[in-house]
């Protein structure tokens, strides 16, 4: 499938939604202009013939290491919970859990 670089505001809105980035209509419009410029730059690589080339994801020819299945982490729940974000002045934790808006009725 050949990519569509003529971005519409609707495309930008959809991507912002996927990325969980809240954006106003003005921001969508300016993002569309800037992203179009960047995709013009990227378009240069579309013409390259890459048939038979293996994609490269790591600079060295290495494979994922395995390790013994033993516990290496210590319990730091209290320390980590002390970093929780505040909401209306109180840290969003309770009984060792993190608080978020209700998801299931």
């Amino acid at each position: 499938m050949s990519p569509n670089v003529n971005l519409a505001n609707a495309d930008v809105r959809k991507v912002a939604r996927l990325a969980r980035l809240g954006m106003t209509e003005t921001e969508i419009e300016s993002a569309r202009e800037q992203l179009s410029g960047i995709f013009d730059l990227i378009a240069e690589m579309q013409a390259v013939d890459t048939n038979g080339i293996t994609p490269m994801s790591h600079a060295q020819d290495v494979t994922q290491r395995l390790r013994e299945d033993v516990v290496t982490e210590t319990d730091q729940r209290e320390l980590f919970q002390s970093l929780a974000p505040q909401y209306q002045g109180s840290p969003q934790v309770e009984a060792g859990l993190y608080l978020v808006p209700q998801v299931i009725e």
Partner: protein
Amino acid sequence: MLNSSLQQLGSALRAGKISSVELTQLYLGRIAELNPALNAYITLNPETSLDQARRADSLLAGGKAQPLTGIPIAQKDIFCAKGWRTTCGSKMLENFIAPYDAHVITQFNDAGAVNLGKTNMDEFAMGSSNETSYFGTVKNPWDRNAVPGGSSGGAACAVAARLCAAATGTDTGGSIRQPAALCGISGIKPTYGTVSRYGMIAFASSLDQAGPMARSAEDLALLLNVMTGFDERDSTSLQRDKEDYGRDLNKPLAGLRIGLPKEFFAEGLAQDVAGCVNAALDEYKKLGATIVDITLPNSRLAVPVYYVLAPAEASSNLSRYDGVRYGYRAPEYGDLTEMYENSRAQGFGAEVKRRIMIGTYVLSHGYYDAYYLQAQKIRRLIAQDFDDAFKLCDVIMGPTSPSTAFNLGEKGDDPVQMYLSDIYTIAVNLAGLPGMSIPAGFGTNGRPSGLQIIGNYFREAQMLNVAHQYQLATDWHSRQPDEI
């Protein structure tokens, strides 16, 4: 004292000519005086630094010192340091106190070095001018109207302004080399996988690599000795024997073959920068090196490939910032989705959002093959170009950046122009090769210009040798800004 090499500082400390507390206070005093204008540091904890210095002094007194014991090092604010605020230049982490140490921090702590403070940087290391930092722009100490480069702009500024003995940086597309060039200092990005990424806040994991920034190649070797080494907590850390990166510093350069890629001297390179590179090459010829013409035919594709791969990896890495367990949470929201959307919209700056958007788009359904997979295939072609080139030469040289430091605000509205300032550095990250920048003169505007040296995999000791011999023959690296 401010212009002493790390080795000289170490000797003075071990000989009791100065204490680590005195040295740390000297730098803290300079920081108090100069940092309000330069903005190189985001966070300082003088008491914590001085505690470390006192511990170093007792090691020194007990004869248990290592080469860097007692030496104050500035840490880029991308490295988690336990008890230190670690922001990565972002509002998202404005109040984040790291609960653990990055591997790099542990290595420096174990070496007895002093953490002097956390340096300013582009937000999440995304930028080439340090202007995307939530904590304000950093000024280039050579000219305060100029950018210091980025993303390790605070580190480069701190080294150039003598606000630390040396510093750490990270380099995903040039973020050690470009600011080093623009601030007139030396910096090296080692082979990918050499320094552990554990506790180094992730941007683009297949490209991110930490390295040292300092005033000379000799200093870089001592710093690399401490920073490198296998770490099982980083899945891409390479299992290799420890090496002494300073072992070849004094080798003569007779017979060295320097490859010049014609693509690095084409359109877009400022004449004054080209002049500095050519003068450096003449110096190398005097030192016995020969010049070989080489070609990196796919290097023109490095920027487009990078701007697919890096944002793709970033969009995935930065999905963790959701306002739930740490970091910024928006003050107002209704449901969970709105909590995510508002927290991320308010916590991230414009450039970070732009890259998350690019990455999300190229990874989205229907576009993966055309963008991400195609970019990974061209990445291999770029790496093969280097493989072919290194059959003809020992090191590759060229400019680090197409121009000397540009003015603050000059490229602010045009992301593509900003991206092109990394045109000579990005291919090195894609290939995973080691690359460095050393000072090689000044542009017509009086701002520093850098020489880039690219080595084959694991040839850092050779590159440092090549840089050190130049620094013995020239004095560009020991120049310092007038007002400093």
